[in-house]
């Protein structure tokens, strides 16, 4: 796991790199997640990564993703396992057509300690299960 600020867009965005496995642990992808405190769930990823991990074979019932503007979309949801520094956390993974960034949301962040100091360009994440 590596946490850092990326300058690919302005203002800079907090990123954590982690490995996502499917529930069978036979497929994995290393992903740069944007740390997003506006997202209440665990993880959202683009559909191509979701398919690469065969997550469509381990799904639950769809959930309604609600934007703060009130607009809703029907999210696919599957179980998966996130590896953060060797600590494996079972979690829900969401996707939708057109998603082009991977986000790590509050439901996972509440299991972590985070030092967020953009002015010092410093970000530190520790998993605390």
């Amino acid at each position, binding site marked *: 796991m590596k946490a850092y600020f990326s300058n690919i867009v302005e203002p800079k965005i907090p990123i954590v790199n982690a490995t996502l496995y499917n*529930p069978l642990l036979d497929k994995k992808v290393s992903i740069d997640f944007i740390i997003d405190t*506006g997202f209440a769930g665990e993880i*959202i990823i*683009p559909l191509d990564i979701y398919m690469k991990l065969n997550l469509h*074979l381990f799904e*639950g*019932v769809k959930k*309604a*993703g609600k934007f703060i503007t009130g607009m809703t979309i029907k999210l696919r949801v599957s179980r998966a396992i996130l590896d953060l520094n060797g600590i494996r956390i079972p979690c829900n993974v969401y996707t939708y057509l057109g998603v082009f960034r991977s986000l790590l949301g509050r439901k996972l962040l509440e299991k972590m300690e985070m030092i967020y100091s953009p002015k010092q360009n410093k970000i530190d994440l520790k998993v605390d299960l």
Partner: protein
Amino acid sequence: MGKLIAVKNIDRDLYKRIKAIASLEERTIGSIVNEALRLWLSLRADRMYDYWLGIEDAYKDDYRVLVEKYGELCEKYEGKYLVICNAKVIGIFDSFREAVLNAGKKCFRHAFVIKIGERIEEEEVELGFPVEFI
């Protein structure tokens, strides 16, 4: 552009709401319909759209079976794990691991792996702000 097009079966209440908001934003209904149509088209222009459609069809078939059988399964097998694919119940398993192994082996287009007894009603997840507005 500017041609008159009549559209049947528009939801009257939805239309009323859009009309009210359009008026507040000093926009025409036509500009809002164009925006909605562009958004609809942009989603379908996604390179993954064919995959999405394939999973969607299978999801609908599997979901129908889930809703039909779930009450009965909850009475008999609460706490166990259910796998549904190809519009059939593939099996009831004691552990999540066993269920995903079977789903991985026997399913191809789509599968549900559900802990029996969990709610299957649609729940909400807060997403924050849509990217297009940022």
